[in-house]
């Protein structure tokens, strides 16, 4: 019986190091692998090394050491071939603001050697999908911030890349537009099989969209796992309970950490294995009426903050011992 073919990862990074000219070591030999068809989040605080990593992959940053392969093509051997698989949506607007929207996307197709007869229908398809078709003959500087972000997505998809890198794609975008962009990204991941790597500060975004996540801090990958697996490790979830009437002090509920965050709002920490129902029963016994409830913060965010804090503490300790 023939063995199943091993699938080539969309992105494979081994021992990637980057030391800037001023001596700052942005990446300390990171290893990362993203499977084809995955929706992958690269998370980390500012300056952790996310953009440097993606910069190396997209050729905007020169690596100091290590190996990067895009769909099996080593960027040191044949970067041009690797680039055909890659679409990049950077953090900052990086198109000529004085050019027409249609010219920007058509020029991008031209840089990939796409004939105009193919580029024109592709541009129409993408601009329509992203709600920019009516603006195609206007100057890019006249677009709103959200439209400019969508323009960068359209531009990056012109040559039908198999791997799309999105560096904080929804930064500064209003909630409605963010949701519609999420839907679009989900669609191209699901229907076209495009592998997506995302960096974001909105951890809700990563939790909602991504299947796998890597957390990077101080130039090192401190965690690389599935989003579900990561969330399963969450020990504590915090809930906010809005009360019908304000209280003078927080009620004592045995086994639970309950505090008064506002006169008519309780904060309740629920550990794994505990039942939220027990809290409601205890409050009911005291005649405290709950009118609504929500998570205090995004679950992934709690875990992320805790991991980064632990990482920072470990780094500070190591530096203190050195």
């Amino acid at each position, binding site marked *: 019986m023939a063995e199943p073919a091993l699938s080539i990862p969309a992105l494979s990074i081994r021992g990637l190091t980057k030391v*800037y000219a001023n001596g700052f070591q942005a990446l300390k030999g990171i290893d990362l692998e993203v499977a084809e068809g995955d929706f992958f989040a690269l998370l980390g605080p500012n300056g952790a090394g996310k953009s440097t990593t993606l910069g190396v992959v997209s050729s*905007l940053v020169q690596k100091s050491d290590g190996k990067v392969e895009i769909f099996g093509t080593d960027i040191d051997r044949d970067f041009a071939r690797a*680039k055909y698989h890659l679409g990049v949506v950077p953090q900052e607007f*990086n198109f000529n603001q004085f050019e027409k929207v249609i*010219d920007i996307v058509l020029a*991008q197709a*031209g*840089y990939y*050697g796409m*004939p105009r007869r193919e580029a024109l229908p592709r541009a129409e398809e993408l601009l329509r999908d992203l709600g920019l078709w009516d603006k195609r003959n206007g100057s890019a500087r006249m677009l709103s911030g959200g439209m400019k972000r969508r323009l960068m997505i359209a531009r990056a998809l012109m040559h039908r890349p198999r791997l799309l890198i999105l560096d904080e794609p929804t930064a500064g975008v209003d909630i409605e537009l963010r949701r519609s962009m999420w839907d679009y990204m989900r669609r191209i991941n699901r229907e076209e099989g495009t592998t997506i790597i995302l960096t974001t500060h909105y951890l809700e975004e990563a939790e909602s969209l991504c299947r796998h996540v890597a957390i990077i801090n101080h130039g090192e990958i401190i965690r690389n796992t599935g989003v579900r697996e990561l969330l399963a490790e969450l020990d504590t979830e915090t809930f906010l309970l809005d009360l019908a009437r304000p209280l003078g002090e927080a009620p004592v509920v045995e086994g639970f950490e309950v505090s008064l965050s506002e006169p008519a709002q309780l904060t309740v920490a629920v550990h794994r294995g505990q039942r939220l129902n027990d809290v409601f029963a205890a409050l009911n016994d005291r005649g405290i009426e709950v009118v609504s409830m929500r998570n205090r913060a995004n679950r992934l965010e709690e875990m992320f903050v805790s991991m980064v804090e632990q990482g920072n503490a470990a780094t500070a300790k190591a530096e203190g011992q050195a």
Partner: protein
Amino acid sequence: MSPQQIAIALWTLLVKEIKRFTRIWPQTLLPPSITMTMYFIIFGSLIGSRIGEMDGFSYMDFIVPGLIMMSVITNSYSNVASSFFSNKFQRSIEEMMVSPMPNWVILSGFVLGGMARGLGVGVIVTIVSLFFTRLSVAHPLLTVGVVVLTAALFSLGGFINALLADKFDDISIVPTFVLTPLTYLGGVFYSISLLPSFWQGVSLLNPILYMVNVFRYGFLGVSDIPVGWALAAILCFILVLFAIALWMLERGKGIRS
């Protein structure tokens, strides 16, 4: 990339560059036309009529080739310098860097764009000159050849300037303090035979003198310097600057961290 894909990429860059300078024609095409018209009126018609002949030709006929060449040099250089630097400044250069286009295609695209503007302005100035004199061309092929090579050379210069520039001021320093003096002292307005022998020797160190003289030779059939040597020197300069610019691009000078 296949040869066909490279041709598409190069054409895309060239069209983009042409669209850029034609979109802002009041800044790119109109000013040299007006400036050169002033030169023709003041130096050619008003003062020139009192100067008499230069190298056996009317002063107007003598300065027309030099003024056309001056426009080509200035516009080729400044087009690439400002366009590439704007791309750097707005980071739209990243569009090209993340694409599979080889660096030599990026370089050639910008150089062809600079040549297009330089030669376009050269044609406009030539048309303006026809209002003041009747042009005759002694060696048409040489005339076209040398103006094309000069446009390529100064486009390459503008590219290197833009790669090295960190701010907009840096792309105006060379045109103001190097190109303009060299062009004015490059035999546009006079024959170097009028100079004392020491200054004739100094003038021969000015590369623009060679371009202006070969171009004038193409029109009038007279030159202060050997035409063959001048053409060889221009070609050598082009090869050297192309190699330097490509090396800088490969190293990511000024565009990659």
